């Protein structure tokens, strides 16, 4: 029975199912030709969270950085700037670029709500490239958790300083 696998399904001509035409969607091309928010932020700054996801062997690496407004200035802590650098296919670049666009102006809790399905729908990603949108969502979550950890460490330092002052 397994021999039948190798006989083409439509012998008379090319079956439309076998011609696999793949074109990049114009939104993906737009993000590639008109890059927005490409670059780096100062990772030592306490208001900056950095997310680095992916592996070169798999084909995609994304670095996404967010800068949050000072809590003294803005209580809700809105994201005022976001930058990305991506090594990978056009869909990966477009997904991370779109993620930086969407994350600007949102609070941290709102940014955590971003789903890979929204990114994939907006860019009309084909099934094979859905993993790129998931990687972009992971990059946002990694950047936000890095920011949270930095804030917790900064608070601990403040408490320690206050404790030493009180003991003196």
């Amino acid at each position, binding site marked *: 029975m397994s021999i039948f696998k190798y006989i083409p399904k439509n012998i008379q001509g090319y079956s439309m*199912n076998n011609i696999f035409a793949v074109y990049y969607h114009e939104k993906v091309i737009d993000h590639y030709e008109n890059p927005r928010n490409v670059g780096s932020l100062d990772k030592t700054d306490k208001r900056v969270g950095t997310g680095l996801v992916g*592996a070169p*062997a*798999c084909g995609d690496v994304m670095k996404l950085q967010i800068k949050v407004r000072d809590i003294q200035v803005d209580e809700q802590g809105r994201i005022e700037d976001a930058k990305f650098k991506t090594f990978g296919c056009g869909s990966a670049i477009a997904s991370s670029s779109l993620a930086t666009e969407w994350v600007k102006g949102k609070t941290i809790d709102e940014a955590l709500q971003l789903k*890979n399905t929204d990114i994939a729908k907006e860019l009309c990603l084909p*099934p094979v490239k859905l*993993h790129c949108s*998931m990687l972009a969502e992971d990059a946002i979550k990694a950047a936000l958790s890095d920011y949270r950890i930095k804030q917790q460490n900064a608070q601990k330092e403040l408490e320690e300083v206050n404790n030493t002052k009180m003991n003196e």
Partner: protein
Amino acid sequence: MLNIHYFIKPVLYIYNSPLILSTKRIKLIDYKSYCLYKFEIVAHETLESLYEYFEDLITENEHLSDSDTTFNNGVLTVNFGSPIGMYVINRQLPNEQIWLSSPISGPKRYDYLKSTDTWVYKHNNQSLHQLLQSEISNILRKNVDFFVCKHSGKYCL
């Protein structure tokens, strides 16, 4: 995943001579290549048995006559046509994972668990065959049994 045996432990890999099938040859390879070779075998068996099951499903169901399935180079695609969409299941060698892209639930990555002989998504501990079982039975609206496929965990083959 870094294991010191990758660097130290050599493995004697015994295989059939391609020309004279009765003789065996021995090759000395490193442990990492051996692990990757074992993963390739398991992944290939999983995908091939899924491909055969999908092919049978498509030929048995008349209303699926527009659907198509292909398996090349470790990439299995099952196209149900619009409005359902296309499933893409492929092996990812560097991670030793199987990646699934479902038109219903999106992308997922599965790791192989030797103890239960299943491919498991670590975020919700659900296996690949369990997900296919629930989604495909909803699409086809009939009973399917993905657990007859290899490395699905339920039946011992």
